[in-house]
């Protein structure tokens, strides 16, 4: 199938073609999902250069394993799990330990100043606020809030107990609220924001 036809084809068909080793079909999948995967790594806190590197690793792993993907309808979830594994692997190699470790001292380490609200800065300030959280906490927060995963799904994806995920999200949410208070107040004042 030509590339021009591929970009109009249904996802399930493109995935099915890529599973057979079709290089063009896989390139089309990279085109379709690259912004999402790169955005996810960016939100998880990766620097721009690292972000592209991790996203490339994710797609390369996907290419190697795609023949084992049983249901082409589940490609997005499957790809996200690869991205999460790549992220966890990166942190393990960096000596960041595993996601299970609770850092009780993280409250003390945080910059407590509240970030001032202007809508154009929201993305940047949200990222700064996330970067003050320990990596295991910010990962749970990003998967839950940015990716819309349920806490059970986060627990399965990160292979950590549900109670730990709940604790990470509770503590992280509390801290984010403190840091982004201005934006939350702004939202309350303008419900259509």
């Amino acid at each position: 199938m030509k590339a021009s036809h591929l970009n109009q084809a249904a996802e399930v068909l493109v995935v099915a073609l890529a599973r057979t080793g079709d290089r063009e079909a896989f390139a089309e999948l990279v085109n379709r999902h690259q912004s999402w995967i790169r955005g996810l790594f960016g939100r998880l806190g990766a620097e721009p250069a690292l972000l592209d590197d991790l996203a490339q690793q994710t797609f390369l792993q996907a290419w190697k394993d795609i023949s084992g993907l049983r249901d082409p309808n589940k490609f997005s979830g499957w790809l996200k799990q690869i991205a999460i594994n790549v992220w966890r692997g990166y942190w393990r190699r960096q000596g960041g330990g595993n996601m299970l470790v609770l850092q009780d001292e993280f409250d003390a380490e945080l910059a407590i100043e509240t970030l001032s609200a202007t809508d154009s800065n929201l993305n940047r300030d949200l990222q700064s606020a996330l970067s003050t959280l320990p990596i295991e906490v910010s990962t749970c927060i990003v998967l839950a809030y940015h990716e819309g995963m349920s806490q059970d799904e986060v627990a399965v994806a990160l292979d950590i107990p549900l109670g730990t995920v709940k604790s990470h999200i509770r503590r992280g949410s509390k801290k984010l609220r403190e840091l982004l208070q201005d934006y939350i107040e702004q939202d309350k004042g303008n419900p259509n924001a």
Partner: protein
Amino acid sequence: MPEQNPHAKDNSDKLDLELEQLFSRAAPDAKPAFSRAFTTKVMQQVDRSYRRAVMWRIALGLIALVIAIPLQDLGLAVTQLLVIEVVEVPNHLMSDLLTPVNSVGAVVTLCLLGIRLTQKRLFNRLAAS
């Protein structure tokens, strides 16, 4: 109204609604622009990985071939040895029919089965005592 335990774990699966709104407002800016260069880089890596896999398969095939040539003679000799008759049967047809039980291979199989049975009995006795 039941008293709430302040140390009880929060089991609610609900997220902070206001934070959810903040994340969704920031989401469009968090998405990097589409980059053709990125796809090109990924596909270059895919090609490199494919070439590496092919090279590995060729290398493994060559190694298997190098090992197989000397082993072929040995395999042939073993095959010829295993079908040698233990008791000579003059009738050619009968000889062929009896080969599974009247051959070196059959004797070797019986010996191996005997060893296995003896081993089992010995271990069972040891386990019982």
